[in-house]
């Protein structure tokens, strides 16, 4: 971003000093979870291909998902999914032109955080209950 005559002038710090706020933190969180979900989209295709290939490859994939490491990944995936889902809905509401007052921005922001945690817990609760029952 050099403008004419400005060559040689130092650039003042930006990300290095700017205070992390709910606004910017949720924005970058939406990005990071989006990238994580992209990786899981690849895994989803692997899962489908394994299922189409027969019971043997499918059970191999299922076993990896069921392992401790697989379960930790799935927990991260679940949280990323709900964070991106809730954050995405927040963005869609903004796209209608609503919710731009600072108070709404912060209320919806914290709502996204709380909802993501609750929905992740709920999902795992149901999943474990289904597995046991």
């Amino acid at each position, binding site marked *: 971003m050099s403008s004419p005559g400005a060559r040689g002038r130092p650039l003042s710090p930006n*990300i290095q000093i700017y205070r*992390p*706020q709910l606004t910017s933190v949720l924005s970058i969180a939406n990005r990071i979870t989006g990238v994580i979900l992209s990786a899981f989209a690849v895994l989803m295709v692997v899962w489908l291909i394994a299922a189409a290939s027969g019971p043997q490859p499918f059970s191999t994939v299922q076993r990896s998902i069921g392992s401790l490491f697989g379960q930790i990944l799935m927990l991260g995936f679940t949280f990323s999914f709900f964070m991106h889902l809730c954050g995405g809905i927040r963005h869609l509401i903004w796209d209608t032109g609503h919710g731009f007052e600072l108070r709404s*921005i912060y209320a919806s922001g914290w709502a996204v955080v709380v909802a993501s945690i609750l929905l992740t817990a709920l999902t795992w609760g149901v999943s474990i209950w289904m597995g046991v029952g």
Partner: protein
Amino acid sequence: MMGKEKRLPLIIDSSDQLPSATILKRFPLPRNFGVAPDSRIEEGQVWKAPAGASRTKAFTIYRYDPDSGDNPTLDIFEVDLDDCGPMVLGALIWIKNKVDPTLTFRRSCREGVCGSCAMNIDGTNWLACTREIAETDEAGRIYPLSNMRIVKDLVPDLTHVFAQYAAMEPWLHSKTPAPENERLQSPEERSELDGYYECILCFCCTSGCPSHWWNGDRFLGPAALLQAYRWLADTRDEATGQRLDDLEDPFRLYRCHTILNCTRTCPKGGTPARRSPRSRK
């Protein structure tokens, strides 16, 4: 969602609320992360308070002297609170008058109207004249506006952001011959400009916008986009179609990712992000 009477630290009602509730004061990155060699900040000197000062407070201030050929530094100034005004701008003026006359910053109205003294105070952009010293962190941190080419100390080169503003042609476009008297608006039509006409061009928003940090040469940034919307919303303007066509670009307009740092930092309580030219199609 929560009680309205009491100001909750987690919910910010207006941009003048202090950012004290953030968990981190800055992102956990090395100080000079991704910074070009000649922009890296080095340690500066400490300027002690005058002997006899009983109430002092330290400020860490970004310094850059174009004539020295050295990198920017962080100087620490101890300010005598009994000898200076109550605002951050007062502390800067005190330093310039009493300690180091070479400290350089812009200021004019000292009452939040002119937008000259916009700078980064404790990690967010604000006007030095409307932020109290008492509201700053211990060792208040003062940097110039973020992501700007620095002329000297706290004076950023605003050429590019003003050019982006000028590119919005911020004046009335009309093909209809000028009427005998004023061009009239109803009170409702006029109220469409509320939240947009107040901009004082301090560039706190554009300088605080991460998308403008990464793509500032092509993305117009919140200040210019707010101005664009101000003219789109004006019923007297006849260039709406042309203005929209000129915005329609993946970078110029659509690099806005609704991060909303702009609204959080606007010293005039404006809402730079809320512009709806997007919904036209």
